């Protein structure tokens, strides 16, 4: 039962990821991105990272992908992209893709990452564990992250204001 779920989510995720890359329409691509994130959240659940799965759905599929959709609608660039497979970049893309796939294949066929049986973290008390770690071991990173978010918010405001200021000056 359990490997079946893993296979289901893995195939779903990979198919949606292919959909992100292949889709011509940016709206469809971002919908595929949302579905792909849902699949990754399913994989997280199977790894017992319930909080991360939830945060992934809330922050990524909820906020970030909605932001992507919003920007796609705002810019309204329709189908001008020439998605022809030509040029150096496409060759480079295929070479890099096949190199990565060859690496994956060699790992899958020969190299086995020796995994000791997973240690059980205290289940059920996961949120408490997170909170404890965040407010003791990782207190400084939490504050730095808060500062980073503040800076990025200010940066976004400045970036989206700048053009109007330039126009006012003219």
């Amino acid at each position, binding site marked *: 039962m359990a490997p079946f779920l893993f296979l289901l989510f893995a195939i779903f995720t990979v198919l949606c990821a292919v959909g992100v890359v292949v889709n011509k329409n940016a709206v469809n691509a971002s919908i595929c991105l949302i579905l792909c994130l849902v699949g990754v959240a399913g994989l997280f659940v199977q790894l017992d990272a319930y909080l991360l799965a939830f945060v992934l759905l809330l922050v990524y599929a909820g906020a970030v992908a909605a932001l992507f959709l919003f920007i796609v609608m705002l810019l309204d660039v329709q189908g001008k992209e020439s998605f022809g497979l030509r040029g150096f970049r496409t060759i480079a893309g295929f070479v890099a893709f096949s190199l990565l796939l060859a690496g994956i294949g060699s790992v899958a066929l020969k190299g086995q990452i020796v995994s000791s049986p997973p240690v059980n973290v205290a289940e059920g008390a996961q949120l408490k564990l997170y909170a404890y770690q965040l407010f003791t071991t990782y207190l400084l990173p939490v504050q730095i992250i808060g500062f980073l978010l503040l800076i990025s918010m200010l940066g976004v405001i400045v970036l989206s204001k700048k*053009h109007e200021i330039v126009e006012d000056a003219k």
Partner: protein
Amino acid sequence: MMTASLNAYIIVSAVLFAIGFFGVLVRRNTLIVFMSLELMLIASTLALVAFSRVNGTMDGNVFVFFILTVAAAEVAVGLAIIVALFRRRHTVQIDQLDTLKN
């Protein structure tokens, strides 16, 4: 419970990363390149969570928590840059954004 082996998770993560990498190199729409970039980031976090689960510690999970936060900030700033770029150049196609080339 750990359902599938660590190898399976790492392979899925690497395949996701490869697909995202391919998208970054091949696509010409800046927005879709950005989405592929997010895909690569998510693939790396999947590997991190899998390793953390096998290791039995919470450190990897907390690290992924931070990565998600930074990624949210990064997406906000990146999309603002794309919008500013679109206002100035009226295109988001990478082919036409070649001012630095000449």
